[in-house]
């Protein structure tokens, strides 16, 4: 009896193993074709679209003005390029986007274009599932002109460590401060602080009667990159040292980083800083329980919604530290997947050029609060009203030239989570040096694992 049972179990296992290996074989063989990505053969009419072609675009513009602005961008593009159809697939957040892009690539069904952070792009590139922009049909002649129209900080952000341009920009933002103007006046602060030291003092004096100066989200694995963690990076840079070297090595135990985190811990101790999740600064600001919110400029629409006209907002750049006022540039770039056909890649290049061109950048900016990536957009008529109503845009946009950005290495995702963890730990009472030590060792081992 027992041997028959064993035989039956073995038979069942063998059947399933065969099924699995067939599928596994199917899966890997279909994606192995992408390792030899079809390089577009240069020809006289490279980049010409011969017949109707559909390209797919995976993105996260799923609500509010982001959604409507993207839909009208697609409509305008399709009207100007009747042979191309753009099919949008929208995800709720970057976490869901990464899962979907990864799964799609694994199954051999990658989209044509997808949003991607720099660290994602590095992983995609080393796994040979995306193509360099210059290899897109039609790009070899037109790419460098388009590239030089961007702000310099944006240009360097598009390259991976091998020096090639693998990504294309679309929406970039900087961190800005949104103040409750009424509360500023009530606290006797005549003008917003221009140094971090002054910022700390102002926050402490405003934190009374149920108001907490600022509420931040240090971040966690589910949420991904948050303003709170970016603030730490900006403070460290303002103190003189960035959290990463240019080749991605972490320097979390550097004194500049430690004093940056200590600054936040001190704010917390004085009751001027609180932590939360899910854009807590925005909620607190709207509830009149916060003096200021630190947020991406693209959060502008959401801040206004939260405030609901209850009080006027004052928007400023970041204050300065000992080594200036570096701002962190955020916003995902676009990549083109290798599984796309030659015609799709040609169409993708046309779409990328359109998205980053001055006309669309002006429209996108005015609708969403992202900065245009090219200064040519500033003179577009559609931006005129927006610039007049939001003077902070013109005064801060030069920051795109000098902004700091996390180096494009795959382990940076893990290291961002490690920094978030260190922030949470320090703000909950762990000593700053031990929190940063743990983060440093975790990030170093992620780096050595490649």
């Amino acid at each position, binding site marked *: 009896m027992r041997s028959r049972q064993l035989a039956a179990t073995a038979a*069942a*296992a063998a*059947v*399933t*193993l065969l*099924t*699995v290996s067939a*599928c*596994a074989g199917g*899966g*890997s063989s279909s*994606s*192995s074709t*992408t*390792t030899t990505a079809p390089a577009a053969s240069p020809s006289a009419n490279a980049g010409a679209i011969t017949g109707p072609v559909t390209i797919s675009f995976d993105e996260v513009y799923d609500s509010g003005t982001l959604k409507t602005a993207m839909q009208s961008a697609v409509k305008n593009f399709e009207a100007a390029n009747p042979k191309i159809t753009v099919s949008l697939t929208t995800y709720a957040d970057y*976490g869901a986007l*990464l*899962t979907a892009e*990864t799964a799609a*690539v*694994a199954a051999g069904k990658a989209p044509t274009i997808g949003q991607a952070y720099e660290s994602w792009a590095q*992983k*995609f590139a080393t*796994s*040979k*599932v995306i193509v360099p922009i210059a290899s897109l049909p039609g790009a070899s002649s037109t790419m460098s002109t388009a590239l030089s129209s961007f702000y310099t900080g944006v240009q360097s952000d598009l390259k991976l460590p091998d020096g090639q341009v693998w990504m294309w920009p679309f929406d970039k933002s900087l961190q800005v401060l949104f103040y409750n103007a009424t509360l500023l006046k009530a606290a006797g602060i005549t003008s917003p602080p221009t140094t971090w030291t002054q910022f700390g003092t102002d926050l402490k004096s405003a934190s009374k009667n149920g108001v*907490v100066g600022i509420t931040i989200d*240090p971040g*966690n*694995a*589910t*949420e*991904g990159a948050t303003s709170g963690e970016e603030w730490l990076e900006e403070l460290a840079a303002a103190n003189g040292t960035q959290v990463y070297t240019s080749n991605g090595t972490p320097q979390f135990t550097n004194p500049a980083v430690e004093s940056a985190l200590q600054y936040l811990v001190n704010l917390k101790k004085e009751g001027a800083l*609180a*932590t*939360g*999740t*899910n854009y807590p600064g925005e*909620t*607190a600001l709207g*509830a009149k*329980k916060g003096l200021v919110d630190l947020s991406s400029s693209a959060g502008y629409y959401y801040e206004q919604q939260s405030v609901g006209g209850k009080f006027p907002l004052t928007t400023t750049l970041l204050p300065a530290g000992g080594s200036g006022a570096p701002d962190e540039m955020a916003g995902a770039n676009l990549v083109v997947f290798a599984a796309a056909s030659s015609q799709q890649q040609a169409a993708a290049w046309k779409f990328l050029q359109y998205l980053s061109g001055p006309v669309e950048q002006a429209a996108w900016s005015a609708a969403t609060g992202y900065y245009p990536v090219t200064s040519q957009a500033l003179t577009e008529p559609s931006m005129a009203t927006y610039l007049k109503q939001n003077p902070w845009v013109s005064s801060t946009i030069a920051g795109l030239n000098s902004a700091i950005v996390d180096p494009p290495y795959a382990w940076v*995702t*893990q290291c961002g*989570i*490690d920094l*978030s*963890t260190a922030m*949470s*730990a320090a703000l*909950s*009472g*762990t000593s700053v040096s031990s929190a940063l030590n743990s*983060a440093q*060792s*975790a*990030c170093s*081992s*992620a780096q050595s*694992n490649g």
Partner: protein
Amino acid sequence: MKRGRRGLRPAGNRDFRRTKKGWLYSAPAILIFSAFIIGPTIYTFYVSLWNWNVLNPSLSVFRGLGNYKELFKATDPSFVQSLENSLYFTGAMIVAGTAISLCLALLLQRGGGLMGASRLAIYLPNATPLIATSIIWSWIYNPQFGVANWVLHSLHLPTSPWVEGQATAMPAVIMFSLWHELGFLTIIFLGGLTVINDEYGEAARVDGAGPWQEFWRITWPQLRPVTYFVIIITTITSLQSFTQFYQLSGGGPNNATTTLSYLIFEESQVLQNTGYAAAVAIVLFLITVFITLVRRRTTPAIR
């Protein structure tokens, strides 16, 4: 006449039960399980032996048991820390879940009307989807605006950061999970209480035994099989819980609520360390199997 296990069977009709083709009836179910669960499980074990490149599997590097050895290194969060969190959560759910639901069952047995409404109210959270209730509780737990801190404040107790404090996050998630599970466990205990033979209890009361003695000597021993079931079901579901750790606490703060399930999610979906995540998954699978086998050997046989 032949005697079978269930009584007499007519000898003339060759027993319809015995048939070599019986497995065909179970084939649809087995096929679904094989294709979508058993097959992928074996594939997961295969993946766990590689430094797996999910984007381009042909670039994967074979590591043998290397991923398993790495489980004990100090990554962030570490496997050992996640295992501790899982055991903390599971242990608390087992102890609190069993004890509280037993008390609730004893309290709510018999009586219609109000008692029945109460039983329904306690079971209601179990019938509502975890995503919706996680969203509800993340607002309840909001340190500045949530009802939880208002209750503490009204009782003149210090307020708590709940899911945002390192030491309080796991207790907060446990409290939410208990709210969700207790109704189901209470119903099970209620079922167990009703099949208990009343005669022993009556006899004890006639002999002058107090309610505590009656419970401890008469009721409790007869509840053992039900208690074992409650413990096992709580163990398995707690070890695999994911949704509330994702939606309510995000694995933090500072990895305080990163359980093994959440670690698998983080490593495979966020960080794409697919091989390592597969190794963690296989370990979690083995732990669950181990516990179930242990239970089989220790449960009194009631079939």
